[in-house]
């Protein structure tokens, strides 16, 4: 068999051609393919929406910046000098962000401003309040467990009568975010699986429609990869277009929500606008769903095409 010397087209141009062809193929059955892509887009939009909401909740939480605090109630005999030394020592600790000493007198003043207790002090003859050191741990960073341990350690220091961790909501937020994250991963996996299966099934049908064509190509010496390639590209294109559509839907949704969100936020915070998915997240969404399509097609071809070759 005579051959021109440089007859072979490069792999790259071959793949590019396959990709473009599979885009063109979609226009042959526009309605069926549009439906498939729409279903894929919906399956992708749901977990993406989850992520989007989670991201914004986290942004709101970060804004409120409500720090956990540890209050150290000092013993009655502690004088101001001892308290200042303790404050300085605490300042140097690892997990500690800031420390404030509130002397018994300052405490009384603050209380008095709110409750007008002048007569009470006169009756008591002495200030009953202990000195308090307010420790603000670094946050976010340590787990609630680490904070608890820190509190216990501080409680054991001399001059400290009692240590209290104001942690209720910290713990809650931490666990809520944990749950949300796991939920997101779980739901994301399920929907990813759904995308793979939808595409696998669509490709499976498409393979059975092309059985005659595959038999012909096989007899002409087409390799397995030659026959499989268009189906893989088709799956990839389904996923890719589904991802693009999902991204557009997300964008439309966040635009639609942004006005009421701003109205709401105006009543709480200075201004809060919805965080959009950034370029990287969008790219991951789109390319990732393309890859899911490829996996689905791979699944379909590996089970369906083997019998032809």
């Amino acid at each position, binding site marked *: 068999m005579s051959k021109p010397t440089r007859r*072979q087209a490069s792999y790259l141009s071959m793949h590019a051609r396959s990709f473009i062809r599979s885009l063109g193929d979609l226009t042959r059955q526009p309605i069926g393919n549009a439906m498939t892509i729409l279903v894929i887009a919906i399956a992708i939009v749901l977990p993406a929406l989850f992520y989007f909401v989670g991201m914004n909740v986290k942004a709101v939480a970060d804004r409120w910046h409500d720090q956990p605090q540890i209050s150290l109630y000092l013993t009655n005999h502690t004088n101001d000098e001892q308290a200042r030394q303790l404050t300085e020592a605490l300042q140097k600790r690892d997990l500690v962000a800031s420390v404030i000493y509130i002397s018994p007198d300052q405490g009384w003043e603050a209380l008095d401003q709110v409750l007008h207790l002048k007569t009470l002090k006169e009756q008591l003859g002495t200030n009953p309040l202990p000195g308090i050191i307010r420790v603000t741990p670094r946050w976010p960073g340590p787990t609630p467990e680490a904070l608890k341990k820190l509190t216990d350690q501080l409680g054991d220091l001399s001059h400290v009568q009692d240590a209290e961790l104001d942690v209720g909501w910290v713990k809650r937020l931490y666990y809520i975010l944990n749950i949300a994250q796991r939920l997101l991963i779980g739901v994301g996996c399920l929907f990813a699986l759904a995308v793979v299966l939808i595409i696998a099934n669509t490709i499976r049908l498409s393979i059975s429609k092309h059985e005659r064509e595959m038999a*012909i190509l096989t007899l002409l*010496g087409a390799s*397995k990869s*030659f026959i499989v390639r268009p189906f893989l590209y088709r799956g990839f294109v389904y996923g890719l277009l589904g991802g693009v559509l999902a991204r557009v839907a997300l964008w439309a949704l966040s635009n639609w929500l942004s006005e009421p969100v701003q109205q709401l936020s105006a009543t709480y915070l200075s201004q809060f606008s919805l965080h959009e998915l950034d370029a990287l997240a969008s790219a991951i969404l789109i390319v990732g769903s393309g890859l899911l399509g490829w996996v689905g097609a791979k699944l379909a071809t590996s089970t369906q095409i083997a019998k032809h070759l």
Partner: protein
Amino acid sequence: MIRFDQVSKRYGKQTALNQVSFTLPEGDMAFLTGHSGAGKTSILRLILCQEKANAGQVFLGNRSITHIKKRQVPLLRRQLGFIAQEANLLEDQTVFQNVALPLIIDRWHSNDLSGRTLAALDKVQLRHKANCKPHELSGGEQQRINIARAIVHKPAILLADEPTGNLDPELAKDILALFDELNRCGMTILIASHALDLIATLPHRILTLSHGQLVGDHA
């Protein structure tokens, strides 16, 4: 060169070929004939590695293809030309694309590809139908397109299964004349056909099968 050495083929309990031996030297042309079910198609399928022999050896050139690895089969087929019994053009592609398929499969550059494809269409005198779809062609034209596709990559060996099967005698003669011409250009050709009356008029070797056995070999 095609060589069968004591080849037997069974489908389950059905014996299709029984210890068949023959050699078709390079550049020769021969007809395989015999009643329906005699084993003609089975011989072609063994050469194409669509089936494996139960006993004996099949050689292409000096190479035994009896135990060829599965992934080597595509490469082997690319060196053969095959015209199947049933119509097997891709309906959604043009005549040109159909004829170009073996070159596309072999990853030819598009510039070389179109020249060779048009040359093959010239050979069967259907260049003017290059942009038609197969269903726009008559049966005889479709069969010529099949031939063009089988020879576009200039294979050393051409196999055909009942290539004149559904054609009227005039067309059948034209097709056989085309094979004759290809053979004169050096192609080794093996044609399965039960149309004895037609074959008998041509000066080529005839291998006769009966119930899976080679019963005649006339030059």
